[in-house]
């Protein structure tokens, strides 16, 4: 996951390189570091470095990392010939390498040769059964073929061993949400919040899932997690602010006719509404009246 500052830094670098201002290598390094998917740009700028022998040699040992990065980007853009060439170079330099073997299997995947890729990964796993990247490729292959139940099975098995892999928990949660298996998605976010309690995105996602599940208890818990998101982001998370308003409204609807003990204090909702209006007034003033009307329609008669 990328923070806003990191995202801005990346965009700025990207624009700089695109407009001929140099910094291609810095951009490629940042993409690698942040693990983001910018395959078209990586392919374009990476290739331009690789094709220039002077630039290439000035990279030193990083040259090979670049070949790998470009190979993967090429596969993502379906430029399989470029990928093949890069892998050939790497194979020549590192003939016994498992890392290159992984790339070759990835190329089989990119070609759609699922069975051959599966065979290649299996044999790589024999020598190194704890290779996390390969386990994850199997999940990716299942997902790419639309076999969601297999993807879920693989991921769950993977997480039994590598339970600290946050990316895997997030991926599993996303798959569950896409299949509308919200209870299971909630469990994933609970694991994430337990291990990384200060990451606001998990609180927010958990709240969203709980709200979607519905029911008074879930809504009340969702409201708490929207509140903790706001806390962790210094009040700057628009989604969480909206979430508070939605929860308050829904809880109010469900509480109609119940005794006063269950009534929520309206302070949190009005604080959130005020914060939203302030934000919109400052940044998106043309949408302010829309927002105000929407917020009014959410306010349940106290």
């Amino acid at each position: 996951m990328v923070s806003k500052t990191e995202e801005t830094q990346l965009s700025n670098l990207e624009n700089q390189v695109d407009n001929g201002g140099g910094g291609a290598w810095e951009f490629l390094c940042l993409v690698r570091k942040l693990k983001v998917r910018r395959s078209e740009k990586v392919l374009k700028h990476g290739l331009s470095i690789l094709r220039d022998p002077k630039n290439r040699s000035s990279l030193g040992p990083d040259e090979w990392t670049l070949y790998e990065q470009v190979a993967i980007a090429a596969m993502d853009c379906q430029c399989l010939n470029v990928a093949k060439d890069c892998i050939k170079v790497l194979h020549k330099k590192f003939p016994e390498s498992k890392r290159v073997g992984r790339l070759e299997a990835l190329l089989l995947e990119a070609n759609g040769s699922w069975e051959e890729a599966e065979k290649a990964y299996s044999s790589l796993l024999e020598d190194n059964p704890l290779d996390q990247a390969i386990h994850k490729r199997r999940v990716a292959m299942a997902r790419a073929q639309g076999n969601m139940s297999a993807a879920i099975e693989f991921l769950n098995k993977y997480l039994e061993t590598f339970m600290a892999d946050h990316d895997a928990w997030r991926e599993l949660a996303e798959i569950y949400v896409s299949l509308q298996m919200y209870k299971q998605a909630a469990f994933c976010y609970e694991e994430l919040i337990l291990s990384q309690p200060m990451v606001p995105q998990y609180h927010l996602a958990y709240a969203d899932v709980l709200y979607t599940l519905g029911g008074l208890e879930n809504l009340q818990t969702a409201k708490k997690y929207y509140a903790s998101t706001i806390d962790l982001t210094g009040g700057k998370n628009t989604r969480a602010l909206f979430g508070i308003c939605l929860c308050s409204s829904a809880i109010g609807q469900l509480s109609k006719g119940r005794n006063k003990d269950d009534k929520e204090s309206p302070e949190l909702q009005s604080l959130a509404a005020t914060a939203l209006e302030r934000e919109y007034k400052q940044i998106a003033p043309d949408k302010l009246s829309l927002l105000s009307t929407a917020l009014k329609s959410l306010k349940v008669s106290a």
Partner: protein
Amino acid sequence: MGGDSRYEIAQDAYVKLILHALKHKASAVNGVLLGRVFSQNDVVEITDSVPLFHSHIGLLPPLEISLLLIEEHYAAKGINIVGYFHANERYDDYELGGAAKNIGDHIYRYFPQAVVLLLDNKKLEALPKSRDRSPVMQLYTRDASKNWKPAGSDGSSQLNIREPSANVVLLDYISTEKWKDVVDFDDHLDDISKDWLNPELFK
């Protein structure tokens, strides 16, 4: 309801949705269709569209907020939500998934002639060669047993694009990578300075 209804989509509404899908090639995307009924000939006119999300489709809070704001904005112009657009994550997935059906059902409750449009990736890919003028989307309507059924080639429930050269315009935009300029509701919620109305997109 449904049956022999005719649906017409405006070029801008049509192109916007496809550009949105192209902007987020690796994920499912969705959008909302806006328009009105022409009572004279019972044609449903889809005059505009708003791209919604490219992540976690199936979570309610962002959807509820977006529908609230969108409805509010367009009601002032006498236009309401008439349908839903969905593009699946995978190239060869032609199934209308659970989330899409649910959102379709929700819209149907307020507009009984509601439609669901599903992006047809193969048709889109073939466009440069096929020079097809028909929309690269599959139309779904609700039948009597409350299921979303694809409109058949038997002519019932047709979707036309209002401007016959829309696909030519679309291909042109694709070649200039116009999709980069599309803003959806996800983008707006992450940065409210981004306008989900996309007022400058086709200027």
